[in-house]
């Protein structure tokens, strides 16, 4: 996959996310212009970017184009935003998301997307057809007769042209003239379209006119690859034929009819309709918003020039020439002194008594920051996860390497009689040590993710499921910025989904039941997160019907999870914790979360496996709260794997000084003790098999010549640990042994290896 496509995929996912979130926000606040603009722009960008990959991604382009047009109509006030629209838009987004996955996996073919994209686009455009005032461009519908005001495309033609056309039409006996206005998208060239070529193919047009859509810009702003032209084509009775010709760009084409006047005198040409006041106000508001966007010094002149042109033209178009002197003065001030107050004061009165620009009109919808976004814009880097893992590995090796330095210092002091040098080395070591620890902690920090990573999928989940169940449920989230290690965040995702679904399915009651119980019709689910010390607390709260301790009591007893004494003796609070007991969730609880059975017991075991715990509180009739408590960072330790017989153990790497293989002949035995000499020093040895009480099994390495010795310093002095073989160093999450194993000496804990095996990590201090 080429780099451009990879970039597109990454960008596209972000855009889908943005539109998705925006649509949900828009459902709650339909008038929010800021959100509206944001999702329109995202959809527009998606359409444009996917347009670079034709014809493979034509389906995505078509679908996002339909979405963009629909959103455009909504933001222009032509259509009201409804939940039905949101449903189809979200469905479209989901589809595009699926296709993106296929593209990434290399499985995507354009033909697969063809049919669904056509269908979904049609459904989206159906909203437009219903709401449109102008005649629809649907080929089957006859073009509506012209309204009393003349179509703008017709009026754009020169008077003499119009007169000549009318005369010719009269002579030819046409009842009406059909005027096509073809306004190609600015980026149409990138789609490989040559509008002029298309227009050329119209058979015997009565007239063809080409003109720029807007007044020409300055040279610096003129981009030859942006299409700024529009085409007006007048035809007699070949309208259908021409519509066929333009079917692929039908959304860039509009038709109007002009009845052929039978009088000799040419029809009076009415003055051009004044531009809509609505558009004018919107333009002004947008200029105000632009003023709020921070810009650096070299952007300002361009911005002022562009605003100046926009405002001048807009004011002229509205016939408000009286405002021009004031505007010119304000623009001069903005240009020379970079002060925008007068410009702002120029615009504000023109807005008159239209509703003031609220926060929602700002392009940026970040509530926490001021509209001028004072420098808190977080700079985000996208980093490949593998690179972070590699950094962790390197840091681990650095930790081991630095452990040799005190040894060097000793040698300097004793063997080379340079206590001064030893001192210097130790000073150096303490600095390196500190830096290494800081580095390790910094890399750990990089692995921290905010819980919003998992929270963000819930609004959509809650919306879809509550609609499906016919319940009204609001989701509130708090504390999304709370951070925890990425491992923890990732592993929490499924349990949280399960908990929220529980509240959705079983917790919140349907509207009628709620009203009868005197509750609000809409239920509330709250996801909150906060930090307490070095723990992260996440709570899922709902105001549903709560858990009935009596039912739990009985169920648990029936399943044999508790005996009669417990059944009668446990408090209500203790009883409801039993929902986490394995065997409590029935096999009938079908989970549709990728087919895995996720019951409450899995929730608890996952959370405990991360070093945390989970508890539930509930009041019958009022609601429930599930509380997860987790460590912020995983206790990640680096261990070296060693083999002893068929078994593998882990030794904390910070205790390991070096590994060495020595010929057996170099090992001296004095009574019960074995020693060797390493670099002229006596090294006492201990055999791991003896320490662990394992019988001596032939060495795995089948090397009768040599012994593998791990030099360790659990107490500051070196000891050689004889093992069968060494293996690599790995990162593990050390978990204390509990239950029956907790009392065993010699083990620091256990860890789950990637292949599912359990690794026992040795506590050398206790063994030696």
């Amino acid at each position, binding site marked *: 996959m080429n780099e451009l496509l990879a970039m597109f995929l990454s960008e596209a996912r972000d855009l889908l996310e943005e539109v998705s979130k925006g649509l949900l926000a828009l459902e709650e606040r339909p008038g929010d212009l800021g959100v509206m603009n944001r999702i329109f722009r995202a959809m527009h960008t998606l359409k444009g970017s996917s347009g670079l990959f034709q014809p493979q991604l034509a389906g995505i382009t078509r679908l996002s184009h339909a979405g963009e047009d629909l959103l455009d109509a909504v933001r222009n006030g032509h259509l009201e935003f409804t939940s039905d629209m949101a449903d189809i838009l979200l469905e479209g987004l989901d589809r595009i998301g699926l296709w993106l996955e296929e593209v990434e996996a290399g499985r995507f073919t354009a033909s697969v997307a063809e049919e669904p994209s056509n269908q979904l686009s049609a459904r989206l455009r159906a909203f437009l057809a219903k709401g449109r005032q102008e005649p629809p461009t649907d080929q089957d519908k006859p073009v509506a007769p012209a309204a009393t005001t003349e179509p703008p495309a017709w009026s754009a033609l020169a008077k003499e042209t119009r007169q000549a056309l009318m005369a010719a039409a009269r002579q030819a006996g046409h009842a009406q003239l059909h005027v096509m206005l073809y306004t190609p998208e600015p980026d149409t060239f990138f789609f490989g379209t040559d509008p*002029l*070529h298309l227009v050329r193919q119209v058979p015997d047009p009565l007239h063809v*006119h*080409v*003109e720029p859509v807007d007044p*020409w810009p300055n040279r610096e702003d*003129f981009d*030859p*690859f942006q299409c*700024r032209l529009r085409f007006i084509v007048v035809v007699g009775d070949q309208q259908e034929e021409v519509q066929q010709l333009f079917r692929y760009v039908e959304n860039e084409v509009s038709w109007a009819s002009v009845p052929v006047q039978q009088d000799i005198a040419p029809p009076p040409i009415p003055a051009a309709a004044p531009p809509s006041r609505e558009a004018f106000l919107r333009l002004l508001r947008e200029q105000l918003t632009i003023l709020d966007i921070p810009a650096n010094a070299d952007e300002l002149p361009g911005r002022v020039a562009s605003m100046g042109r926009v405002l001048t033209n807009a004011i002229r178009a509205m016939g408000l020439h009286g405002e021009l002197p004031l505007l010119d003065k304000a623009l001069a001030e903005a240009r020379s002194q970079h002060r925008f107050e007068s410009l702002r004061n120029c615009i504000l009165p023109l807005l008159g008594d239209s509703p003031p620009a609220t926060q929602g009109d700002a392009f940026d919808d970040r509530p926490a920051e001021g509209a001028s976004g004072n420098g808190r814009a977080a700079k985000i880097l996208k980093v490949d996860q593998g690179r972070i893992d590699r950094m962790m590995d390197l840091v681990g090796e650095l930790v081991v390497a630095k452990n040799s330095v005190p040894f060097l210092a000793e040698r300097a002091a004793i063997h080379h009689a340079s206590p001064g040098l030893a001192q210097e080395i130790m000073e150096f070591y303490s600095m390196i040590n500190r830096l290494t620890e800081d580095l390790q902690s910094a890399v750990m920090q990089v692995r921290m993710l905010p819980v919003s990573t998992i929270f963000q999928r819930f609004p959509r989940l809650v919306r879809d499921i509550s609609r499906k169940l016919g319940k009204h449920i609001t989701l509130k989230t708090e504390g999304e910025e709370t951070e925890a290690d990425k491992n923890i965040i990732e592993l929490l995702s499924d349990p949280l989904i399960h908990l929220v679904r529980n509240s959705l399915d079983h917790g919140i009651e349907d509207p009628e039941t709620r009203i009868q119980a005197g509750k609000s019709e809409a239920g509330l689910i709250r996801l909150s997160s906060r930090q307490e010390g070095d723990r992260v607390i996440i709570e899922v709260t709902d105001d549903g019907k709560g858990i009935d301790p009596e039912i739990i009591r009985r169920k648990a007893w029936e399943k044999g999870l508790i005996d009669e004494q417990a059944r009668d003796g446990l408090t209500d609070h203790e009883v409801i914790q039993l929902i986490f007991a394995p065997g409590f969730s029935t096999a009938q609880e079908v989970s549709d979360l990728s087919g895995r059975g996720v019951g409450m017991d899995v929730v608890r075991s996952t959370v405990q496996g991360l070093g945390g715990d989970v508890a539930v509180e509930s009041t019958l009739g009022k609601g429930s709260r599930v509380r997860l408590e987790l460590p912020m960072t995983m206790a990640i330790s680096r261990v070296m794997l060693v083999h002893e017989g068929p078994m593998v153990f882990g030794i904390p790497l910070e205790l390991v000084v070096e590994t060495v293989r020595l010929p057996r002949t170099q090992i001296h035995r004095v009574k019960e003790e074995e020693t060797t000499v390493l670099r002229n020093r006596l090294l006492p040895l201990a055999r791991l098999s003896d320490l662990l009480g394992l019988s001596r099994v032939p060495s795995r390495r089948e090397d009768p010549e040599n012994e593998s010795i791990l030099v360790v310093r659990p107490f500051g002095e070196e000891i050689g640990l004889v093992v069968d073989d060494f293996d690599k160093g790995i990162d593990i999450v050390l978990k204390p042994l509990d239950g029956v194993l907790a009392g065993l000496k010699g083990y620091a804990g256990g860890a789950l290896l990637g292949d599912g095996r359990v690794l026992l990590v040795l506590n050398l201090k206790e063994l030696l």
Partner: protein
Amino acid sequence: MPVTFEDGRATFTGECVIEEAEGLLAWLYEHPEGLVDVTACTHLHTAILQALLFCFPHQAGPPQDPFLARWLWPLLTKSRTGQV
């Protein structure tokens, strides 16, 4: 065929494609008094047309191609208002 530039004259021959647009525009900026010759042109891409409408250079003569002659020639030569 590509547009050829020689002695202050830009000559279009046959079909002129979008890739020519940038080069043509640069030449037009540098030669405001230059002459554009579309007589042998059979088709030009919209981007080329756009560049010509934007710069509005002197024209050597009408194109022989009927479509271009009938509909575009008037636009390339009539006086316009509104150009910056």
